[in-house]
């Protein structure tokens, strides 16, 4: 008779705390909560804009609240962390080669950062110009 009795170790709810890589992964995924909440606040602002000036000013008033300011700082950090981790992973999604040599990850990562800087400058520029006008 077989004496086999394979033992399956249970995976606890805190599995991601046992390994630094897994903890950082969960942190990366967790940033989506802040990005999601930020999007909802932005949608609320858009809805206020459609309703009229009073509603819009009311929304702007809410944003002066320190709780919202702290939230936006956290959301910005979360968004940047997500972007940085994504930029470092992006090269994996594509196979690039020149002749018979595979290209390194570096050019793809650099292109992402350049696009990030250009997009940021353009958007901030448009907002600043719009504000000035």
């Amino acid at each position, binding site marked *: 008779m077989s*004496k*086999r*009795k*394979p*033992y*399956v*170790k249970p*995976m606890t709810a805190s*599995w*991601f705390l*046992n*390994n630094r*890589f*897994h903890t950082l*992964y969960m942190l990366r*995924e967790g940033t989506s909560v802040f990005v999601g909440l930020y999007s909802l606040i932005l949608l609320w602002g858009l809805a206020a804009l459609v309703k009229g000036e009073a509603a819009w000013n009311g929304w702007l008033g809410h944003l002066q609240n320190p709780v919202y300011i702290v939230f936006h700082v956290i959301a910005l950090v979360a968004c940047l962390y997500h972007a940085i981790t994504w930029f470092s*992973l992006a*090269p*994996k*999604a*594509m*196979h690039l*080669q020149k*002749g*018979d*040599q*595979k290209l390194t990850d570096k050019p793809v990562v650099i292109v992402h950062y350049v696009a990030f800087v250009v997009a940021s400058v353009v958007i901030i520029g448009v907002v600043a110009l719009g504000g000035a006008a």
Partner: protein
Amino acid sequence: MSQAMMRVTVQRYRPEQDDAPFMQEFEVPYADDMSVIDALHYIKDNLDGTLSYRWSCRMAICGSCGYMVNGVPKLGCKTFLRDYLNTGLTVESLANFPIERDLVSDIGDFVEKLEEVKPYIIRQDAVSVQDGEHLQTPAQLTRYRQYSLCINCGLCYAACPQYGLNNEFMGPAALTLLHRYNQDSRDQGRDERIDIVNAEEGVWGCTFVGYCSEVCPKGVDPAAAIQQGKVESSKDFVMSKLRPRRSS
């Protein structure tokens, strides 16, 4: 001069008498060039002959000696005691696989998944031996070479929380092997493998944790193969609306 010693903690599980694994400490003589399997050999030869563990080539090509070393999937032959002088050394069986005995894992599920992806060259056109070899350029080889270096050690499965949470997921090495054949210019079996790629247990079961690529001892980068599989799967979704697949 007295011989320097190092404490090594090893997971034990004897199915005929234990209900659950437990940890056992051993003192082994320390040397700078001593690997984890050297330490396990010392224990088995001198301290406890009942210790069970897998090993073979001692040079990171057979893929037999995968263990969790201080909670990280490692090859025992490629991991040295000298790197654990300050932290201590704990050896356990590979995570996410059932424990058969001591450090021996049951990797049967992983091996079945490797077979499932049809890891061989499939041709749609009939070619006879008289027609000669299928020629391949170095550039065509580069498209899949890295993915062909897998030694089936299973470290990537031990690193993958998605496989740990649900072992229906095909997992890193099997999906990488699938991608390796799909990328091979001699192969025409893409349509026969696409259902595995597209399935919930296929590439979409991966949430891009990326730890599989981190622990891979051969630089195969399974996470890259799976993400490229997601691109293929997305393209297939669109293309399947436009053209019928080859019948499999």
